[in-house]
């Protein structure tokens, strides 16, 4: 009886499905603005602890979120996810796709006052390329044969073979961040670049302080200082915002977003998507080698009800992990509806009758909503005759067991919404991809993702990626659940919040943010 209660009640919630656009939606109050004023210290309640401050090495979102303000990149992306020059003034790609010529902006200064030149670019890229640096994006430079600097403001990169996503990959994850020659060893403790803010102070676990860089090439920022106070406890962060101790916080607790949105004394910025989540099945574990089992598992899950349950409605379900507003997103796919009886039949057909599957689901406490998701799944899987046992893992244990050793049966993970399709589909689903911790080995996907790398025409490439998504879905290699919203809560006097979220959806940029009196 209790089981049915859960089903009925959860489906009852789906009445109004969430409509989210890929653009940011802003409170109307923000649209009418005075002219920006300079000055003031913004106190930001940051949700995570900042660690290694080396932008080339760090793979954690927490550090990148801060470092985005200290560094600039050779290229970046605009709101439509098109690659645009940042520290470069122009980019010229040869017709054969093998030579990239970057003309650098003149008059760009590093925080120590020295001018940025082609030798700094060469140094930075060679640093990332060198495996000994341990840079997360080092494979971006895999095909790079040489980096030449004919003059101070020209960089010529020659590739050994065509790598169509090269430019867009440079815009991601600090791969294209330029640091001064010889500063590599000190970046981890005192990061320095040519971004709008200078690094001022780092007190481990407490605060990162940044101050305005007056000679910033794109005009100085408005704020004197940004104080990123690290407060990992979400309710504490909220209290800080309520009491006025903090000007803004990122990551409002999921169950409280509605309440803060209704509060006339606070503003909420929410954007979509922040990240996607998917349920993973280890392809080396025997039952999951059969596509029928994976499809049956997909059928057990009611994604919309799960999203309401675990995310309190702060997201939107999606059958594909492709970036929703990207041209390559496959709009033809529809998630499989929940069908417990159908799943049971399919499992029986695959040789797993009711009660024969006992599966351990590893979930990390690093993302509390993963634990909630897992607990809801246990109930549904029990209805389908599959016994799911949860094992909670700390982040370190999840990484070592699931990511590195691939020692798991089922798990789930989220990735920051990756707008760059090669980065997303090749890394996650190609059998040799760096993020293929599920052991997916599908020749169709391998061929398609490889073909896309050699396809220079954008529209044609988009079609290839649509086919990749179709294949992932048909084979149910993973169960894609949803895209989660990102949220920021702020005091009413924090202005320019419409510019704070980087188009990639994960970094925050304070260049155009200001405080009204």
């Amino acid at each position, binding site marked *: 009886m209790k089981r049915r209660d859960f089903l009925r009640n959860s489906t009852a919630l789906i009445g109004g499905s969430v409509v989210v656009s890929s653009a940011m939606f802003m409170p109307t109050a923000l649209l009418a603005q005075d002219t920006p004023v300079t000055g003031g210290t913004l106190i930001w309640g940051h949700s995570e602890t900042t660690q290694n401050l080396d932008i080339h090495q760090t793979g954690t979102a927490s550090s990148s979120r801060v470092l985005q303000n200290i560094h600039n990149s050779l290229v970046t992306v605009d709101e439509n996810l098109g690659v645009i020059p940042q520290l470069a003034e122009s980019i010229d790609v040869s017709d054969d796709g093998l030579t990239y010529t970057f003309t650098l902006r003149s008059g760009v200064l590093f925080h120590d006052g020295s001018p940025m030149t082609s030798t700094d670019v060469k140094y930075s890229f060679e640093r990332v390329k060198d495996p000994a640096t341990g840079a997360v994006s080092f494979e971006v430079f895999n095909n790079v044969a040489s980096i030449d600097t004919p003059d101070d403001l020209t960089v010529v990169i020659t590739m050994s073979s065509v790598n169509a996503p090269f430019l867009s990959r440079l815009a991601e994850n600090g791969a294209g961040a330029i640091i001064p020659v010889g500063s590599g060893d000190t970046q981890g403790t005192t990061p320095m670049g040519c971004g709008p803010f200078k690094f001022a102070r*780092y007190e481990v676990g407490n605060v990162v302080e940044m101050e305005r860089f007056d000679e910033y090439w794109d005009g100085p920022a408005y704020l004197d200082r940004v104080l990123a106070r690290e407060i990992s406890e979400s309710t504490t962060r909220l209290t800080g915002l309520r009491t006025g101790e903090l000007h803004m916080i990122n990551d409002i607790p999921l169950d409280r977003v509605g309440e803060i949105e209704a509060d006339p004394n606070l503003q909420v910025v929410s954007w979509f998507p922040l990240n996607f989540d998917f349920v993973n099945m280890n392809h080396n574990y025997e039952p999951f080698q059969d596509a029928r089992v994976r499809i049956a598992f997909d059928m057990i899950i009611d994604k919309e009800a799960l999203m309401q349950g675990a995310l309190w409605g702060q997201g939107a379900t999606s059958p594909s992990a492709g970036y929703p507003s990207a041209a390559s997103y496959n709009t033809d796919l529809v998630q499989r509806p929940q069908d417990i009886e159908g799943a049971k039949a399919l499992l029986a057909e695959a040789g797993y009758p009711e009660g024969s599957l006992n599966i351990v689901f590893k979930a990390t406490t690093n993302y509390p909503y993963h634990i909630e998701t897992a607990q809801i799944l246990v109930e549904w899987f029990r209805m389908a005759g599959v016994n799911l046992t949860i094992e909670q893992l700390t982040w370190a244990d999840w990484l070592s067991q699931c990511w590195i050793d691939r020692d798991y049966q089922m798990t789930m993970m989220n990735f920051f919404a990756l707008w760059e399709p090669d980065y997303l589909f090749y890394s996650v689903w190609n059998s040799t991809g760096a993020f293929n911790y599920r052991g997916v080995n599908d020749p169709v996907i391998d061929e398609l993702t490889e073909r896309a790398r050699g396809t220079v025409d954008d529209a044609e490439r988009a079609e290839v990626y649509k086919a990749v998504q179709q294949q992932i879905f048909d084979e149910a290699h993973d169960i894609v659940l949803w895209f989660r919203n990102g949220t920021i809560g702020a005091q009413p006097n924090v202005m320019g919040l419409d510019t704070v979220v980087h188009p990639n959806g994960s970094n925050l940029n304070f260049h155009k943010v200001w405080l009204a009196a």
Partner: protein
Amino acid sequence: MSLTYVLNRLLSVILTLFLITLVTFGVTNILPGDVAMMIMGTQSNPEAMAGLRASLGLDDPLIVQYGRWVGGMLTGDWGNSLIFRQPIAVLLGEKIAASAIIVVMSMTIALSLAVPLGVWAAVHRDKWQDTTSSSAALLGVSLPDFFWGIVMILVFARWLGWFPSSGFVDPAEDFMGALRHAFLPSLALGLGLMAHLTRMTRSTMTGILEQEFIRVARAKGLAERVVVWRYGLANAIGPVITIAGLQVGYLFGSIIVMESLFNYTGMGWLTYQALLNRDMPLIQATVFVIAAVVMLTNLLVDLLYLAIDPRIRLD
């Protein structure tokens, strides 16, 4: 106090400290995963990780790493935290100072509550006052201290708004602010401590109040208040403080949870972060320091006890 006893004691402390380094090093190396994995997270790929691992010195043989660690500690070079990229000696200095505020404050709270309560219970032994006091003390030890922490946040930060619910403030910058931020975690820890100390005070005082010199004092017609507080307590305070010293180990265990709960970035927080991030040099340093502090306070307390009460058997 016999000199050979002290020397023996010191020698055994040094031996134990050495054993502690072995245990700490051994245990940290059994921990699954490493810091390179933590730095790269879900952005890692095997080649880049191998590079990072080598550049962090994680590939060296264990005996080399152990030698480097112990040798470094002896020469004052504690190395760098791999995850925070800061010198460990600096980090330890900062965080020990932060935790010291909590340790001192919770001790003060605990003693100022436990001593009167314990004396009160001893004076009215087996009466309702005794029952009340020991029940209160029992309630204190009966709740997990993190639960007290949660209650403190709820009552004093959320509902009443008297104290901040989290964070650490450097006393050099804002002294009152630092005390206000340390108050709630200290109170939560102090309540647990108070319980132990109340029981100790009660039993010590009970013993003393039965002794001859108290009877003499009473017979001389001294006021009961003077007998209890001036004669009784003066003799009980030594043992009570000794017991309080022995609680330092308990305190260091508790601050791990408490500092995480209050986001108070002291030693406990640092130790937990080091563990979570598999930052071996930092785990080794924090755990060693905690174990050493516990050992040394115990030694100090022992010697103090010996100095106060030479009747203690020397075995």
